């Protein structure tokens, strides 16, 4: 009996490490990945029931096909891929003599390296969006990134002559972080790097400074982001919503902004009661508007920059895997690629 079992194991192992299995596994990985682009990802379970009907929708929800790449069984599939490659490579180790066979081995193992890096990121990567106004400093600890201070000195939008944005540039400094201090102008495609922490230029908007006086006595100055709702804090569920029109203009449909450049800045301020707009005013900088027991002064406006913080220790391993992948491939196919007679 033990003998038979052994043989069964060996047959299973030799099947798992056969070329045939590799082909089916590859086709399966391709088919499953493709499925995730055909079924919309990240929707609610109700969406799938509604879109695909109760039967198919239930299957989609049961197998997490709506979050396919995050599903446990997808990770399992990747694990199986990695493990079979490892076993295969181990078996072929003895025969690795020529450039081609060593190349093939390096190439296959680099896939395991990349998968490991991805798994590492899955467990340890963290990211957060931070919206910082010009001249403002935020503490990284508030976003779960240990010690350090992030300051936005200035934010600039560079335009093409036809007023399409050419580049978004944030002049930032990072101080007190473990990797030392940094002061850098970052833009799209050019993040700040401090070890495994990177800071990306991600988006931008307007920050509006508003002086708020309640009942003619208590006064405060608040910073509100464009489109945000700011609660006024009194018992009656009052709030304001601000909309900034940097280049104010009017036509028969109402007010709008001609461009995104502050040529004719104007603030639209709505007073909300229980979420419903009850009053509204348009103000140029320095102007004041009276609404109910409140008075508002549009003090100033500036940019805020949306910066994405990302800490990801797995990326280094993944990129090392990329280099190995290329070296392995070149080794495997050197003769075929670069010599006349080929393989």
């Amino acid at each position, binding site marked *: 009996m033990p003998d038979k079992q052994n043989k069964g194991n060996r047959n299973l192992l030799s099947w798992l490490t056969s070329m045939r299995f590799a082909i089916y596994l*590859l086709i399966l990985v391709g088919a499953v*990945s*493709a499925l995730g682009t055909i079924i919309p*990802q990240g929707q609610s379970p109700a969406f799938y029931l509604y879109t695909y009907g109760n039967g198919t929708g239930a299957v989609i929800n049961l197998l997490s096909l709506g979050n396919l790449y995050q599903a446990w069984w997808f990770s399992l599939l990747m694990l199986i891929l990695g493990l079979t490659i490892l076993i295969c490579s181990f078996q072929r180790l003895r025969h690795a003599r020529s450039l081609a066979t060593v190349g093939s081995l390096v190439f296959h193992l680099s896939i395991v390296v990349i998968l490991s890096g991805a798994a590492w990121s899955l467990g340890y990567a963290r990211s957060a969006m931070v919206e910082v106004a010009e001249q403002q400093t935020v503490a990284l600890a508030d976003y779960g990134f240990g010690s350090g201070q992030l300051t936005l000195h200035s934010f600039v939008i560079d335009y093409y002559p036809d007023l399409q944005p*050419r*580049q978004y540039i944030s002049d930032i400094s990072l101080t007190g972080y473990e990797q030392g201090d940094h002061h850098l102008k970052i833009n799209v495609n050019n993040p700040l790097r401090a070890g495994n922490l990177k800071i990306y230029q991600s988006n931008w908007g307007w920050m509006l400074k508003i002086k708020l006086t309640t009942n003619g006595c208590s006064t405060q100055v608040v910073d509100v982001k464009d489109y945000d709702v700011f609660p006024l804090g009194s018992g009656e569920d009052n709030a304001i919503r601000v909309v900034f029109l940097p280049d104010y203009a009017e036509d028969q449909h109402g007010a709008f902004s001609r461009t995104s450049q502050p040529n004719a800045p104007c603030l639209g301020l709505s007073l909300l009661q229980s979420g419903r707009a009850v009053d509204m005013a348009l103000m140029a900088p320095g102007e004041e508007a009276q609404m109910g027991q409140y008075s508002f002064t549009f003090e100033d406006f500036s940019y805020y920059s949306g910066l994405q913080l990302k800490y990801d220790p797995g990326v280094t391993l993944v990129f090392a895997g990329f280099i190995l992948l290329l070296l392995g491939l070149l080794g495997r*196919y050197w003769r*075929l690629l670069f010599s006349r007679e080929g393989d």
Partner: protein
Amino acid sequence: MAEKLFMVTFVMLVLAVLINLARLWLPVSWLDKAAPLPMYLTAACLLVILAWRTADLGRLPLANMYEFSVFMVFVILLGYFFIRRSLTAVEFDLAVSLLLTLLFAMLASLPSDLRPLMPALQSRWLTAHVATAIMAYSAFAIAFCLGIIYLSRTNQEDPSLKVIDRQVYRLVVWGFVLLTLAIITGAVWAEEVWGNWWSWDPKETWSLVTWVVYAAYLHARRTKEWRGRRSAWLVVIGFLVVLFTLYGVSILLPGLHSYA
């Protein structure tokens, strides 16, 4: 002027198809000699079109679907001239000219206006990423044409099968290495611009599917039961996946790559 040149190119391609069709029925030597002429003229026209656009833009025209496609038609032509030195067959000329005519006709539906680069595209990785993708897809396109010819020759004793199989293999290896480079440069770029080297965006995912299909081919060629016709099918399917990655995804499954 550019439009006229475009028309001329298209007429040349159609002419090439017609000549190659005629060669199937009329095996006369002057037709065989004339066959490559319109293809050379097509390449010359495309070179002028691309040079023009490069001068207008002040950079290589590699930033959108239209520029990608014109470039790809040109690179497929170059690859075709290269392969043709060692493999001559009427069906090959016909298949390539037909494919290029279809690709070129499809180009007419793409927006061709000159646009400045949006911030996300201003990267030193753009050229490397797009150029390797174009070369990879061109190699796969030619392999596809040869794969179809392989499958159309049903006599398994035909000695030409071995020659074709060999060329397909070499093309797929070139394509596979270049596609690996394209995916890696894309991933490194994505990490730099979005902070994520892989986000399962549809275009990204389908390029992985393409990669996996050709990896399956490379394995298939080394097993007894997959060698020959079955692996030739993988090469044909592979290019259909390429076409879907290039055009189908942009039309049906927009994602982060939606500007392309």
